[in-house]
């Protein structure tokens, strides 16, 4: 795995959002369509490629509290807005060696979290739960020990208190549970296959209609 090797060689503790998603993509986990851009020319090309509405975010390893620092601009609808967002973000983060991500705008009020952690006794464990800003406030999550089977994945979804958000509610279709289960199984497999990965957060994993998409992701490395 090139991304992992490179990051480990550089002695990094984390992968950037874009690297994290590239890694997830190789495991067939659905992620946002996005292009990394380091200057205005690249940004312009990326903006045209992705199309509106789109999201522009700062991107670098070890970059936390992106939203609080104003480093995420959502629902950008034209080129003018996009270029000014690009420059504003770059001004804030250029000293960190950051780039920007031009990302398709994934919309949906149902935000989930999928994660991987390593328990000292059980080894890699998969987490599923309510995502977004509620993850740590409500702690509505469920764990299983990897490897997990489909039945485990389906049970995890039934165990959270907010399980009803996976059903057809308020005009939204039911979540594609099979696809969600695949994601959970694969995250567990990453834990078993890649010793150098300590933890993963996919948060939020947004339900775009019925389809889950990783909108932000963080891979933490084992030094």
């Amino acid at each position, binding site marked *: 795995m090139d991304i992992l090797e490179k990051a480990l060689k550089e002695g990094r503790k984390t992968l950037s959002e874009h690297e994290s998603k590239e890694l997830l993509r190789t495991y067939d986990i659905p992620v946002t369509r996005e292009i990394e851009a380091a200057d205005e020319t690249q940004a312009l090309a990326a903006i045209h490629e992705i199309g509106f509405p789109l999201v522009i975010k700062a991107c670098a390893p070890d970059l936390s509290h992106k939203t609080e620092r104003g480093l995420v601009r959502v629902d950008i609808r034209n080129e003018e807005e996009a270029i000014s967002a690009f420059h504003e973000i770059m001004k804030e983060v250029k000293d960190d060696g950051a780039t920007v991500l031009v990302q398709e705008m994934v919309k949906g009020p149902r935000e989930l979290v999928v994660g991987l952690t390593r328990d000292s006794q059980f080894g890699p464990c998969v*987490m599923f739960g309510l995502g977004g800003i509620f993850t740590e406030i409500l702690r509505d999550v469920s764990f299983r020990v990897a490897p997990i089977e489909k039945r485990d994945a389906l049970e995890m979804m039934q165990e959270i208190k907010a399980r009803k958000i996976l059903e057809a509610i308020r005009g939204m279709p039911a979540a594609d549970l099979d696809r969600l289960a695949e994601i959970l199984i694969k995250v567990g497999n990453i834990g078993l296959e890649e010793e150098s990965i300590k933890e993963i957060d996919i948060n939020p994993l947004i339900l775009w209609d019925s389809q889950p998409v990783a909108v932000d992701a963080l891979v933490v490395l084992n030094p």
Partner: protein
Amino acid sequence: METSNNLKALFNPEAVAVIGASENPEKLGYHVMKSLTTGGFEGRIIPVNPGSKEIMGIPSSPSLGEFPGSIDLAVVVVPAGVVPRIFEDCEHKAVKGIVLITAGFKEIDDPSGAQQQTALAQIAQRAGISVIGPNTFGMINLHGNLNASFTPEFSLAQKGGLTLVSQSGGISHLLAFMAMRQGVGLSKIVGLGNRLNIDFADILPYLIEDPETEVIALYLEGLDEPKRLMAAASAHRGKKPIVAFKTGNSETGDKASLSHTGSMAGNQEVYEGALRQAGILRVESIQSLLDMARALAICPRPEGPRIAVLTGQAGPGMAACDICEAEGLKISPFKPETQGIINGLLPPLAIRTNPVDMGPAWYDSSSIHGIIEAVMEDSNIDGILLLMMFASANGEAVANIFDLLVEWNQKKPVITCLVSPPGVWDGQVGDLEKAGAIFDLPTPERAAKVMAGLYHYGKLVK
């Protein structure tokens, strides 16, 4: 399957030696002898003590080696320092199992305790001896009239199908005494103590094959190798119900973790998932452990989450409904035919949709009978919670539905809370339970919780 064979001999020995047997009530060796002799054990008991000719009227042997016959089980109650020598004696004697009551090993602060335990484990491994303990009260096989513990009163428990396996002596005593007080039949009570070479994972396959064990209840604190337990339970998923209560949950996630996942993965959360994954039903209290273990022996599992709450008074029904909803059960509507029958049996103004307040039918037991019967046959209902508090006016209610419940024989689970002043309904309720027609709990909440546990267990092992 050496361990399983050893365990078979350990729980069903023909000859039991008590090493450290004593006539002095201030020694545990006295209490162990009392347990064996008063517990009705029909095999041979050999007290071993270098200073005595006989103990409690039984001829004793100065050492294990000097006893001419063979020994299946050695119960060891000598000071920790002497135990290695005793283990070697057991090896020479080809003893199959040891219950090592002696404490002072891995559980003490002094690291020498852990070292000694490791040394004992090596002897046991070499000799192929299965060891329960050290640091345990012992074990009891009620069906074999074998009480190899320092608590003779365990033998007073009724014989039944529930096997308790615990990491704590205190919890074992508590559970066994609760079981005795509630008339719950027990099969085996096992204190694993420090788990020299018999851990939960080692005893589980034996108990799953054990014809005298119907349900296995585990009390866990912390395990050295929890994945072994998961593997052992998963391998036999659904063959026999396993319920577990785990304490020591306070360990939280890694707060310094860079990820949310890491910071939320506490010991409790991970164990909860792991136990479910292995097909083990996890409960949240000691009382619940006993309630669920009993229920799983008596009741079928609801096919789905749709529960009917039939209550003689509104309040208990509300209490039960709250728990049902919180635990993932559904108080769902009846089929129109069923609702029609109920409407015909209850006066206007009564709450007749699920939950059904049968209070207005107090004076008319045949209405209560009719409602229960209709709900039993309703294919939209997966289980029945029947709650009735005695009142002078409904005193005959239990008698009037007795035959109906017996005949129905829990084709769907019927969990009840039938409460009266002492002695009024108790006999009938007890008979219904014995007939397997109901499982009765003393509060509506516990009844609802048990229904939820049955449903969740059913899903775990489907």
